[in-house]
């Protein structure tokens, strides 16, 4: 049997779910993300904006960066802000990497919620999704989840989110996916 170790992965995704009733049309995010590049809103290299609004339950509008992407993701019909860490922080611990990812997702969320062009957009404090899109190091199995669970618990405790119930979700072919909710 192949051993996995999700802690080794530099790749992490965090999804914060949006309130669908208060979600502006997808095209509203295009100028917002272009503005983030122009005005250097984040302390990371942002490169371009990709529009996939035509794809059913797709990544919507994606702000492409070097270390990470940000998208208004519609997977499973549930819109939200998806933070996609692609590389970096290799020297940090898995927990530090996860904490950093959650913080960056939260910072992007705050920018969106404060943007007048997206008036009314809101994200849930009661749920988030953590994913490790790296099949070399992580599979979507109970064993791999059990190995990753303490890391997730510690990272969530360090965040301002009060999320303490963890559950592995999704098809085993998908990346390791952990749903965190408040108990």
């Amino acid at each position: 049997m192949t051993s996995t170790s999700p802690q080794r992965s530099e790749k992490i995704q965090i999804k914060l779910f949006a309130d669908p009733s208060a979600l502006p049309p997808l095209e509203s995010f295009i100028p917002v993300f272009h503005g983030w590049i122009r005005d250097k809103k984040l302390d990371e290299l942002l490169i371009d904006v990709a529009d996939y609004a035509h794809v059913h339950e797709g990544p919507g509008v994606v702000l492409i960066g070097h270390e990470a992407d940000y998208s208004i993701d519609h997977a499973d019909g549930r819109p939200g802000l998806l933070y996609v860490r692609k590389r970096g922080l290799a020297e940090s611990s898995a927990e530090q990497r996860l904490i950093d990812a959650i913080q960056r997702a939260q910072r992007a969320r705050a920018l969106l919620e404060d943007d007048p062009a997206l008036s009314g957009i809101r994200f849930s404090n009661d749920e988030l999704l953590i994913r490790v899109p790296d099949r070399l190091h992580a599979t979507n199995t109970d064993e791999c989840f059990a190995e990753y669970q303490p890391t997730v618990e510690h990272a969530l405790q360090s965040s301002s989110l009060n999320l303490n119930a963890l559950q592995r979700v999704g098809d085993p072919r998908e990346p390791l996916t952990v749903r965190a909710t408040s108990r």
Partner: protein
Amino acid sequence: MSAANRKDASWKERLDGRMPEHLAREIDVFEGQIELKKQKKLDDKLFAETRLRRGAYGQRYDNGLRDDGTGQKPLAFPRGELTKGPDTVWDAPGMQRIKIPFGKLSAEQLEVLSDLAEEYSDAILHVTTRQDIQLHFIHIEDTPDMHRRLASVGITTREACGNSVRNVTACQFAGVCSTESFDVAPYAHATTEYFLGHPDVQDFGRKFKIAFSGCADEPCGLVTFHDLGAVALTQEIDGKIERGFRVVVGGGLGAVPVEAKVLREFCPAEELLPLSQAVARVFARLGEKNSRARARIKFLIQKLGIDEFKRLVDEERANLRPDERWNALLSDLSVTDEDPVRPAGDLPESSSPAFNAWAKTNLRPQSQAGYYVATVTLPLGDFTPKQGRALADLARTYTGDAMRLTVEQNIAFRWISGADAPAFFDKLAALGLAEPGASTITDVTACPGTDTCKLGIASSRGLAGELRKHLTVVQDQLDPAVRNLRIKASGCFNSCSQHHVADLGFLGVSRNVGGRKVPHFNVVLGGQWSENAKSYGTVVTAIPSKNVPKVVDAIAQKYAQEKHEDESFQQFFQRIGKSEIRKLLQPFSKPPSYEEDKSFYSDWGDPREYTIGDLGIGECAGEIVPFVEFGLQAAEQELHGAQDALDSGDSGAAAKAGLGAMVTAAKALVRYLDVQVRDDADDVVAQFRTHLHDTKLFHDPFAKGKFAQYLLITAANKTLDQADTEIARRTLDEAQLFLEAAHACYQRMEQQRASGGDSPSSPAGQPETP
């Protein structure tokens, strides 16, 4: 625990034994080249062509500059000084093109492709107009592992780009079509296998595209605009029905569209590979190498004339050394066959308007009764990894490994039982993939354009998305003849959407208006998609991008109102003439002033003020790096490997690899002289002796033939793998000297060519065929 199962195992270790050995080796070499480039030990052009031949393209902004709407700004990539080609920053995201020969895809392959899109790109898989898959925003250092994972399911990215034979395409209905002469898929497969890595296709000045069609009348193969096209035919010879092909050459789109010319009215099937090889060799020898703009084979044929080209091909064919693969690759014509997983069944009557609308445009009966081809319409050719995995599940349930990517950026599922069609449709609907209108006006094709392409001038995907949205809403009110029109949009003159053969084609251009740039599209009308893309459209006028939807409406309305009964759009356009259409479009041709409406000064889906400052130098053409340079580089890598083996105490492996490096370098020089040579070392050394040593071409001005002696003497030594350290060291020293001499020899021959002296060709010409 085996290495593959360790927690810190790499993909290379994990997939060990699951990749074809030759693919695994090639990927290791590519990974080594990436490392050498990181250490700045490889030349930019050479590395660029190397990665391009592995399908790893550059993307927009990879020169490290991007206009953010207020001016061009540097993108501060971490390793900004490191490059992966001329003016191409190492860390800049790139595109990975993945060849899917004739579009044939298995469920397992689709799953792996989906995994890769999810892990390395922006979670979108894109189907191209040449039956490839493209993933965007890829980092170059991720490519070797991607290639390994693809190799583990039988996919190679080799020669997906670069100046070589690109993906071999064929109609998606091959084998299940009622109008075909016979199934062309096994021939497309054989051609793919034959040319992959073949020495005769490594030294082109430009790319070379091959397409197959099962019949002359339908458009699916589009052979007319390919460098080499083959249309299936049968002939009765001596009372027997023989298979063959009408072979055409020199077609192409791009800025100068040219229809292919007939090379052979009937080429017997068993002659297909040698004839194609002869064409490739003539192109490699005589095609333009310095000016990319005139390096496609169409220009060579224009220069020579088709009759002279035919004569040269005949001559080349007569001199070809027989190759057992010509027949071996065609010995099993069932190699591409598919077995249905469900019994045949009748299509049931349905009361569902949604199903009926979909079935009308997206279901096509096969030649096998009770089976259908279902076309899954992908908006702009895009789908998500999640959809990809679900489609793989559908394939397993309903069709088996019988998916084909189409040149209209969709996926065809073959062998759907009629009885299963409603259930299949319901499952597609749950995935958001049950849109009707395949191959109709709503199924707009587009190249990447300014979204990701370095050459894009206008947003072809933005326009295509807008037209899709607009036309989907009004499609029920459209005249049936209008509904069947095809629209294709290209971001620049390279014509990747194939707009020349659309009824309504659009080509991105830029215009200056009041001192500002405005994105426009040239309207190209009257192209013919049927009969293998029989004729090309003509440019009518340029229209501001934001007015194109209105232009489509106006043309569609005029056609619907004024067409004669059963008059095709091409006939209609020819009848009423260009000037009449230009008059119709005149009110849309001028944008409002900037002060009146700023939106005209931005492109679709992009709020930045429009600029063409982000245009880069395209990599479609590849870098022209002579094959000999690849060979010499490969030899150096072999020598590095030999040194590593010696350092690790394996003298036998070191000596063998050292000799192998000499053979590789010798082969590169032999091939430079346009001498046919096999891969085996004995033949290489024999040809080297005849054409380089005995002719003194290899001789150093001072040392004469000294550096060749060790190779000539030692090549016959079959016991080198038992060499001791002393012999190994000597072999490596000799190999180093040989490689230096090979470089010097190449430079002398190049100088001789450049100075216009006698071409340093083999005095003996082509050797006798054995």
